[in-house]
Structures are given as structure tokens and as C-alpha cells.
């Protein structure tokens, strides 16, 4: 779960990391009031869950409160990088001597947290040459210790009071990383402004699987309205560009199903992983949602493990009855746990299923009117 910049900044502040003065605003009037309080030039930053806002015009500046209201009015309600701006963060405009990047994420190969830092901050970290990037893996057991902060500072060429502040900020970021079960915590840019080091931007992505122990955090929703509807069923879902709706059970098999469809010339409309052992109800709801997107055809590809074929069959039958028949061709492939029972249920309701994934895929591509001729 990604937090909005203003939320992430409030965790930074609570940990004692210096952030720019300012507040979040939902209306131009609020933005104006905040700019007046600050009494100096401000930055007005769109609160959206995407990077590179600046390039996309999502960050504006204003010298007066009236100007702040005007700029906020331009941003609020607009779409930046396909995302609607509902709030802006109005902050003092910093005088910047140098921009750094400082972040902590998880190194999957090392299986531990890793600090990533560069003295070339403020831009896409992806674009910084590898040799300018400092990487410091952290022992999950012993944690990030004060001297690690100093090591990073020295490798960025920083010493004295600035080095000391950077070391301190890194310590505090690591504490936040652990306390909030973060997948990623970063500040880009982390700004050197005179004698101070200030987190001009802040990002904190919390591990979804850890949310049970973070009841205190706000819940931030991401994705298209359709994606949100399926996520509420507890299923993994991504919208794609094609017109063959797909449901399978397991991320790998779902990806492979898309691959096979594409191989035969079909264009999948979505990725929907019904997961291991989803019950009849959410499976039925997911099928309904897929059908509501008006695909040309639908493919259900189930290799039952924890997932039981009879549950999937019952879900299909439920939807069929509710809708008075499927609006588009539905191709079913059903093997594995309780396969016999599942096929029996389908048969009783006039449905048939394939045993072979390839045949099913070729069939649905054909029914969608696509594929190699």
C-alpha cells in the first residue's frame, strides 16, 4: 500500500526527520490560507500515487497566497499521469544547495533490506549511472546502526554537520522502514539547504501483507475502479488492453494463460488470479465483474490443487443462472482436485469443459474472432 506524500511526510516528521513546513489542501482556498500562514513562496504538489510528477506538470510554485490559490485550482481535479488530483501539498519553497536520493528497499536476492543512495538526487533514480549509486545491504538481525549512516555519508562525499545529519536521517528512516513494514521508504530529493538536510519529498510503501498489524495507518486504495472492485474480493487483478477475459488460479498459471492466448494470436483483457482455494462466492463475483467489461469471450483455466473444481463449476453455474445465460462465449478448462464432481455439475447445466489448456486457449481465441488465420 502506497501512502500519499503528505502521509509519508507525517511519519517522517514523527520520527524526527526534518520536512518542509506546510500542510495538505483540498481546495484553492485552503491552499491560499496555508500560503498566507507560511508567508513566503510555496511549492504546490499534486498528491498522486505516481513518480515524476514534476515532469508531468504536477508541481507548481507560487510567490503569493493569491497565486497559490490559482495554481492549486489548476491542479485540483486535473489528471496527472492518468490519476485524478484530489489534494495538494502546500509547502515552503526550499532554497536548494544540493539534491540527494536516499532510500531503503528489499533486495530479493540478498533477502535483506538495502540502502540505496546517490548524490545525484531529484531525478529518476533509474537514470543515475550505477557507479554513482551507493548500495548498503543491512543485516535484518542487527539492523541499521549509526555507523552505517556515516559510511553512506562518507561514500556520498559528505562529512561534518551535514554528514552527521544524513547519518541520523538514515537511522530514522530505517526505524520507520521496520516499524511500518515498508517495502520502500525514500526521500527524493533529500535536500541540503544551508546547514540543514531536509526531506523535500517522502515516499513510504507498506507491505500489504503486514496491514493486520498497522491498524493505525489510513487505507489508501490504488488502481482503476474496476481493479478496486476485484481487489475487494481479495483477488489479484490487473486490467489489460485486449478483449478475452481470463480467470485462472495461481499467478504463474495465470501469466502462462495470457502467454498462451497471445501465442495463438488472442488479446487478453485482464490478469485475474483467483488464487488458491477461493470460495464459490468470490469466484462467482469475479466472473460477473469480468463479464461486465464486455469482452468478446472468456477463458476459465483451472488446475485444481487447493482450488476445488466443483467450487469453480458451482460459481459458473450460479452466474449463468443469475444472468440467464452467459452474454459471451465462455471456454472452460477444468482438471485437478474434485474434477469429476466439477464436470458433473457443468454437464447438468449444459456446460462442457476441456482437459487440455492448449485446446481451450485455441478455442477461445477462435470464438473471439481473433488469432492466426
Amino acid at each position: 500500500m502506497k501512502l500519499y506524500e503528505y502521509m509519508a511526510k507525517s511519519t517522517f516528521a514523527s520520527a524526527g526527520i526534518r520536512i518542509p513546513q506546510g500542510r495538505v489542501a483540498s481546495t484553492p482556498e485552503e491552499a491560499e490560507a496555508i500560503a498566507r500562514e507560511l508567508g513566503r513562496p510555496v511549492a504546490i504538489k499534486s498528491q498522486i500515487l505516481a513518480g515524476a510528477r514534476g515532469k508531468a506538470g504536477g508541481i507548481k510554485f507560487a510567490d503569493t497566497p493569491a497565486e497559490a490559490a490559482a495554481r492549486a485550482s489548476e491542479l485540483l481535479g486535473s489528471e496527472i499521469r492518468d490519476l485524478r488530483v484530489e489534494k495538494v501539498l502546500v509547502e515552503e519553497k526550499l532554497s536548494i544547495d544540493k539534491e540527494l536520493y536516499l532510500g531503503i528497499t528489499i533486495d530479493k536476492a540478498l533477502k535483506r533490506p538495502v540502502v540505496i543512495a546517490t548524490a545525484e538526487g531529484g531525478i529518476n533514480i533509474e537514470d543515475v549511472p550505477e557507479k554513482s549509486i551507493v548500495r548498503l545491504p543491512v543485516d535484518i538481525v542487527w539492523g541499521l546502526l549509526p555507523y552505517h549512516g556515516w559510511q553512506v555519508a562518507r561514500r556520498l562525499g559528505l562529512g561534518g554537520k551535514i554528514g552527521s545529519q544524513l547519518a541520523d536521517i538514515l537511522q530514522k528512516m530505517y526505524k520507520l522502514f521496520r516499524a511500518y513494514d515498508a517495502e520502500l521508504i525514500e526521500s527524493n530529493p533529500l535536500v541540503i539547504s544551508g546547514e540543514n538536510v531536509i526531506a523535500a519529498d517522502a515516499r513510504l510503501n507498506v507491505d500489504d501483507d503486514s496491514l493486520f498489524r498497522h491498524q493505525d495507518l489510513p487505507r489508501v486504495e490504488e488502481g482503476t475502479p474496476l481493479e478496486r472492485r476485484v481487489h475487494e474480493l481479495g483477488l489479484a487483478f490487473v486490467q489489460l488492453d485486449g478483449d478475452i477475459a481470463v480467470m485462472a488460479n495461481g499467478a504463474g498459471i495465470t501469466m502462462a494463460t495470457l502467454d498462451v492466448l497471445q501465442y495463438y494470436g488472442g488479446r487478453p483483457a485482464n490478469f485475474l488470479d483467483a488464487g488458491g482455494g477461493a470460495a464459490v462466492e468470490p469466484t462467482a463475483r469475479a466472473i460477473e465483474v469480468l463479464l461486465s467489461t464486455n469482452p468478446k469471450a472468456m477463458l476459465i483455466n483451472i488446475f485444481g490443487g487447493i482450488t476445488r473444481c466443483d467450487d469453480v463449476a458451482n460459481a459458473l453455474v450460479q452466474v449463468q443462472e443469475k444472468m440467464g445465460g452467459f452474454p459471451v462465449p465462455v471456454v472452460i478448462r477444468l482438471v485437478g482436485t474434485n474434477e469429476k464432481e466439477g464436470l458433473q455439475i457443468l454437464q447438468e447445466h449444459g456446460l462442457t469443459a476441456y482437459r487440455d489448456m492448449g485446446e481451450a486457449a485455441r478455442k477461445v481465441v477462435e470464438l473471439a474472432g481473433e488469432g492466426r488465420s
Partner: protein
Amino acid sequence: MAIIVDEKTKLVVQGITGNQGNFHTRQMLDYGTRVVAGVTPGRGGAEVHGVPVYDTVQEAVDKHGANASVIFVPAPGVRDAAFEAIGSGIKTLVIVTEHVPVQDAMAIVAYAGERGVTVIGPNTYGICSPGKCKIGIPPNVIFKPGHVGVVARSGTLSYEITAAISNAGFGESTVVGMGGDRVVGLTFIDVLKMFERDAETEAVTLVGEIGGTAEEEAAEFIKGMQKPVVAFLAGRAAPPGKRMGHAGAIIERGRGTFESKVQALEAAGALVAKLPWEVPDLLRKALGGKR
């Protein structure tokens, strides 16, 4: 032989009194796995399918010589359960539970590393050495004793390919599901090393997917292997930057793309199947070629 688990494996089921634990204990017993004990703190003295239940893993180890454990407890309790298994002298730990917080997974893997414990998962279907021992949740019917080692990141896709290998007449020495999470106990290389040393394994099938660089790293090792490797990779059709259910399956910064993985594996001498059911054909070709 086979790797990691075999007929000498004595299993304790953590969370045996839960629905999943109960159901899969029955399945594993039916497969022939030596399930010697179950653990649910506070439920010591009970029985599940004739298997005695204890309050602690230590009792299962002391009284029954348990050397492996499978965890079915809900995600918030996995860290504690895993630490108990590792701290009690268990040598192979299979964590089936999904949605384990990744920072818990890092701690579990670190602790296991200190103690020399093999961790499979979290978010794995488990492991099976056909005819000897199955730990976890895969359907019993897909396995067949044989000489192909299978190692996979994802679950159902791995069933699909394993079933294809079995149906083609090959059979498997051991099938290992490493788990679909970002941080899991084993790497491809760990498992490839074991298969390379295992006398019963003649060829290896690697089932990978986009995201991360695990397949690229595996390719480095495959270069030096004696045994042939056949790979299938999922995610050719995935658009860049979209999360496909597995937290691990995010395409990052141009690394971990489908193309880079295929290229790396083919350069290392592996045969890469375009469709899942091509794997048996390539195995036939590889074994014919190298032997």
C-alpha cells in the same frame, strides 16, 4: 536419493487442528508421508487423523524424531511458528501460508541460515519426492517417480508442467516449489546444486517467471552444470510495470524482463519451452542429446 525430503523424512504439522492443516494432513498421510506429530499450542493431547498433537515442536522432535515441519498457521503467526521449528532442531521447514509479511520472511530466512535449516516458502505448495514423501498441498495424482528434477517459483503452473512430465512417461526425482513471495528460503541455484549432485536426477526443469533476476542468476550456474536443463518462463505477455499477483513479478528497470531471462538461459545452454506442454518434448531432446 531425491533431494531435501525422502522416505526418512518425519514430518510435524504446525497448525494441524486448523481446516487447512487437518485437510492436508489427511492428503499427506494418503500419499504415504510419515506425518509423526502435529502442533497447536494449548491443544496438546488431542489427535488428528490418528496423529498426536502437542503444545510444542520440541515434544514432536523429542518423542518422534521429527526432522521436518510444515506450517499451516495463519500469516500473523507464521514468524513465531517458523522460529519455533528452527529453534527446536527441525532441519527442513515448509511454509505453505501465503501473505506472510516480507519482513517476517527476511527474519525467518536469516534465522534459518544461522541454524543450517532449509526453508521452502513462504507461499509455497511444498515439495514432493514422488513415491517417498510429499509435504504441502499439491494434488497427489500429478506426481510419478522418475528422474526429472523440477524447481518452480509458482504453484499451479508447476502442477501443469509436472503433470505434463508425468503424463509423458518421465516422472520426477523431486519437485520443489520455492514459493511465490519476494523473499523465500531457497534460490534456483540452491536447488540446481542439489539436483546436480543427486544421483537419481538426470535432467532438471526450471519453471520461472518475469520479475527479479533469479532466472538470470540461475543461468550463470547452469553454464557449469553437467545435467541438461529445460525451462519454461511465464509472463511473455505481461505489460511492463504491471503487478501480476506475485509481489515478485514486477518488471523493474529493464532487468528481469522475459527477453533477458530467455536470453540468459539459452546462452547458458538451457532449452526454453515456448508453451508449457512443450517441456516433455524438450526433455526428450535434451536427454537424447546429452546422454
